[in-house]
């Protein structure tokens, strides 16, 4: 239904927009090995986005394909978290954002492997393998840079301070997520309180339940990198509305203008 479609759009947009920011790094990375690795991560996320947006189109029933979602929606219909849309900074910022994003998304996809929606479950199962690698890549660079030179340590601290204000949003459940996360229990719980039914999977995950795993992983990586979790306030949305509500940062409009420019110049085009 509509909720499932909206949920797939959220997870798909996260991957699509994060992939876009990584695509912009292409030809600007410090080593060829990093060119290969970052392009690979961007490709994995693009693949996840395609599957999720295709699933959204099917669940929605409106007949929209993946390209409709990517190229013909206005900004306020994009439902990604704001973390992924921020303008690129230096390589430390790339590493930090990727560490945060992949740690969060790995925890999420790991649980979604048993989603009651079998398509979503399959997408998640595939994604877990990919994101495990992304997280390792980011963690390794976090350690290298945190425990590298004074300069790299300083840059990692600045990157953490820039990225961290957008972390809380990752764990804030949107009503769609809340509904899909409990629906299983309600749907199945009707009169049946036996062991099996209590653990019947939901379609979605309440991201709030991922926080402690995220905090543990980050604590571990930051410790190995001689870095500390920064003390910075989260950046609020507008009147409580966040990326999941379609309310973004000023960076988003420019990103979409670029991403959608060719497709929109040729709305009847075949590619």
């Amino acid at each position: 239904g509509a909720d499932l479609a909206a949920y797939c759009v959220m997870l798909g947009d996260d991957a699509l927009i994060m992939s876009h920011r990584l695509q912009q790094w292409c030809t600007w990375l410090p080593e060829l090995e990093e060119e290969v690795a970052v392009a690979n991560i961007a490709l994995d996320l693009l693949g996840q986005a395609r599957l999720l947006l295709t699933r959204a189109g099917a669940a929605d029933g409106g007949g929209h394909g993946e390209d409709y979602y990517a190229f013909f929606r206005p900004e306020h219909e994009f439902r990604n978290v704001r973390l992924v849309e921020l303008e690129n900074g230096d390589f430390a910022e790339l590493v930090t954002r990727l560490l945060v994003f992949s740690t969060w998304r790995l925890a999420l996809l790991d649980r979604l492997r048993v989603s009651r929606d079998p398509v979503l479950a399959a997408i998640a199962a595939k994604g877990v393998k990919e994101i495990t690698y992304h997280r390792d890549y980011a963690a390794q660079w976090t350690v290298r840079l945190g425990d590298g030179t004074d300069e790299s340590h300083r840059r990692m601290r600045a990157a953490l301070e820039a990225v961290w204000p957008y972390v809380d949003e990752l764990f804030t459940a949107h009503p769609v997520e809340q509904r899909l996360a409990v629906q299983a229990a309600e749907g199945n719980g009707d009169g049946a309180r036996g062991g099996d039914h209590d653990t019947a999977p939901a379609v979605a995950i309440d991201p709030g339940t991922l926080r402690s795993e995220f905090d543990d992983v980050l604590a571990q990586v930051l410790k190995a990198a001689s870095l500390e979790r920064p003390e910075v306030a989260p950046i609020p949305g507008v009147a409580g509305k966040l990326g999941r509500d379609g309310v973004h940062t000023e960076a988003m409009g420019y990103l979409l203008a670029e991403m959608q420019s060719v497709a929109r110049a040729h709305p009847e085009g075949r590619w």
Partner: protein
Amino acid sequence: QDLERHFDEIIARDQRIEPRDWMPDGYRKTLVRQIAQHAHSEIIGMQPEANWITRAPSLRRKAILLAKVQDEAGHGLYLYSAAETLGADRTEMTEKLIDSRQKYSSIFNYPTLNFADVGVIGWLVDGAAICNQVPLCRSSYGPYARGMVRICKEESFHQRQGYELLMTMMRGTEEQRQMVQDATDRWWWPSLMMFGPPDHDSPNTAQSMEWKIKRHTNDELRQRFVDMTVPQAEALGVTLPDPELAWNDERGHYDFGEIDWSEFKQVISGNGPCNAQRLAHRRRAHEDGAWVREAAAAHAAKHSHAAVS
């Protein structure tokens, strides 16, 4: 002299020279230069295509393009490694590139101006590169020859994808067909220049052929490319921008017009439309990444100390 005879015999028998084998200085130098140029071309060649990744008009095409540019980075890595088996150093080669002391293929000094350029680069530029490179799979130097086998396989794949994009666009709107024609007009002549100067003006060809680093002359390869491409253009429905292009029954080849060698020389000598831009881009990426490489080295040094102590 024993060594030299051994080397000559390997070459004569069409076998492979390997890194541990003795080789003449000239052979080594020629190869290092050629492989480094080839590696640089892969790296600089990422730029004109990467220019369209974020604007690719479908997610499928975006993925194809991103994967292609990634492959080019992989080819660069491969080729730098092959050059390193001859004693060259990657950092040094990169510095020679950004200081304009080593060259890269001139074709990448042209701008990509619409999305059809992505397809035309696959079709014409990769097509020309394959013509150049297939013989290199039989290069006398083992690591280079083996690298080229894999690279050629991937480039054929890219070429088909490029051509398929153009086919699809030609079935689209009138504007799209114009984009394909416009891109073809801009890339045709530079693609022909990819085979290098005409034979009578190519001083290194003889020695390279003797060493079996090179297997065909520039003009032979260029003709092969033209013969292969003209029917593809017809199938596609685009006009190649050369009024003299015509089948010559006698020769069994297509005749084609005179290449503007003055343009070729300008671009080779640094004055193409994008030479300055491409090098400045690569230089800035390299300089911006210095602190990262230093940090990685410092971390590795700490780590190896810790392991030892």
